[in-house]
């Protein structure tokens, strides 16, 4: 082998692979609009992307798994937490977290109200990108599993509604990031320890505003219409009284999934 041969190898290889790369880039471009549902890419979302950049969110957080590792990945955060809670959180994270309890605290970055809405819209749009199935299992900010391992193989496809409901609660539906099942442990929402019993008490309470007649109906209503009756106390509601629980489950959860969740919650006596 002579130097002329290896030089040809270098230049030849470089030219060929650059050409292939450019061709693949062009093809990739043609698929992006659909894969990222660019029709939902509104001006508000674009402004949100710039808020994301201006406040340097990416040097603490990852998004689509890229960024820094000091703070949780936010790819699915809007589906998991919902807009009302995120609005309250972004305005003042110290209402929900503390360095003593959680080890670290997101600084109050001083976003304006419109900026908060814009960045949430941006995150919501990112959550809908077709990522080839990443993350393979939900990444949660907090809560969840120390008490229950959500990913026992096959639990989501089990024949038993309660098993499926529990897997949803801990995993895909991410209820566990807001609700503990330990007496006295309040995360963002009230503990659901004994919720089957509490539900009956709620109905008996004269302050109850909703339409449910039975405990099971109350559970279903709590999931699908959080604002039908807002439990008082803690950090449960925004200043205007709207519940911080996502009000989108009527759209994002399949009816079967709601049945499973209710079946599971009904076992928490």
């Amino acid at each position: 082998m002579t130097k002329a041969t290896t030089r040809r190898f270098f230049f030849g290889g470089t030219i060929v692979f650059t050409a292939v790369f450019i061709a693949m880039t062009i093809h990739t471009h043609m698929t992006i609009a659909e894969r990222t549902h660019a029709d939902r890419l509104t001006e508000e979302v674009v402004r949100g992307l710039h808020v994301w950049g201006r406040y340097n969110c990416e040097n603490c957080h990852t998004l689509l798994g890229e960024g820094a590792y000091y703070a949780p990945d936010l790819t699915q955060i809007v589906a998991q937490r919902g807009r009302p809670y995120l609005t309250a959180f972004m305005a003042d994270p110290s209402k929900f977290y503390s360095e003593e309890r959680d080890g670290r605290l997101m600084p109050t970055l001083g976003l304006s109200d419109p900026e908060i809405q814009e960045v949430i819209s941006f995150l919501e749009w990112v959550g809908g990108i077709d990522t080839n199935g990443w993350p393979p299992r939900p990444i949660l900010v907090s809560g969840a599993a120390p008490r229950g391992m959500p990913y026992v193989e096959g639990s989501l496809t089990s024949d038993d509604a309660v098993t499926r409901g529990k897997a949803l609660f801990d995993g895909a539906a991410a209820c566990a990031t807001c609700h503990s099942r330990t007496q006295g442990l309040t995360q963002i929402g009230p503990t659901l320890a004994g919720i089957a019993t509490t539900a009956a008490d709620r109905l008996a309470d004269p302050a109850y505003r909703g339409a449910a007649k039975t405990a099971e109906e109350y559970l279903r209503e709590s999931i699908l219409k959080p604002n039908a009756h807002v439990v008082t106390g803690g950090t449960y509601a925004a200043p205007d009284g709207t519940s911080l629980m996502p009000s989108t489950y009527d759209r994002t959860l399949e009816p079967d999934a709601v049945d499973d969740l209710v079946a599971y919650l009904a076992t928490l006596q």
Partner: protein
Amino acid sequence: MTYRSQRVAYAYFLAALVLFALQVCFGFLTLAKYLGPDPLRDVMNFATTKAVHTNLLLVWILTGFMGATYYMVPEESRTELWSERIAWGQLALWLAVGVITVVGYLFGWTTGRKFLEMPTVLKVGVVIVMVMFLVNIVQTIRRAGRFTTTEGVLVGGLAAVALLFIPAFIVFDNYTLDRFYRWWVVHLWVEGVWELVMGAILAFLLIRLSGADREVMEKWLYVIVGLTFLSGILGTGHHYYWIGTPRYWLWVGGVFSALEPLAFLGMAAYAYNTIRRSGLAHPNSIALHWTIGAAVLATIGAGLLGLAHTWPQVNRWTHGTHITTMHGHLAFFGAYSMIVLAIISYALPGLTGRDEAETQTSLGLWAFWLMTGGIFGMTMAMGAAGIGQTYLERILGFGYLEAQKKIQVHYVMWFATAIVFASGVGAYIWDFVRAGAPRSVPAAAPARDLRVPA
């Protein structure tokens, strides 16, 4: 030094080392925030210190590359630089841009795009610097009319570095496209054109340090950089698995990026063979340590630890965890920091008008072993943190914050080993300072006749 204008290289090297020291300081500040409450949260939060840490890294490595070029090109082309004035002006502008960037971050002036956080105006400053640099180098070579392959790979690599900076200017509305082109800069730099620069410096050093045959070395240099592009260009696909790009990138990225370690293995084999043929007899043993060290640690940090998580079936679990931090540190240090430190150690005796044997202090060797040992320990600590995080958070489904609490001990280990590393950095800088200021010595007069007793 053989040519008077090579003295500009000393100033570049000095600047690079000062920035390196600052980078390490900001590394500690950043890591400290992992360990406990952060009293500086509202003054200088994690995002700020981390961006300063990584940007200082890029700036000092590039400063080192520029210094290396200003040292190597006169030697290779056997001439003075075309314009020493441009070289000084370039350094001044480059440092001004660097300082404004870092101070700007402290005041929140950032675009927050990982590694490319610089505001656009400052990026224009970078382009001006690059143009000054390339013009000066190309003119030097043209005037001399002598052009070696090593030099060609070096200058070609640097020109491509400048060219690939262009995508950093484009603003995208679609986050997926924003990510797609961010990697044209970040990946195609470190796993593409920077490797050309590294390969050229390595070839230069091996030829000088071992007296190996230039024809043979340059023949293999083409093989190494050929392998780099053969694997690295389509290897960009290992960043296109999960960002909204089509599924075919999973296997294209997987297969080609799995070939990327070949180029690094090539460099290690290159170093090994030269040493085997010509021995380790060169008087500048410290430079030899750094040169061989770079070839070996790059192979481990970039090649082996890159390979460890590049396959999509693995990457889907480890993506965006401290596994990436671990690989990023050892790859950057092994490949690019060590090669810059190698050329500095090689050039220092000449630049300061000293005899090579005389600059071989035990402090210099300590610096090598403390940094190497330290980064090795840091890699272990980050690796343990990354495995813990992947398992607890990604596989078992613990909340992010709960998983972080459980891996605290690895941050403590990271901190402890970082102290070892930092003491090596201190030793290196002290050794550099002790070698004295640059002096040009007429080629005929041996350095030792002019020396003031130290």
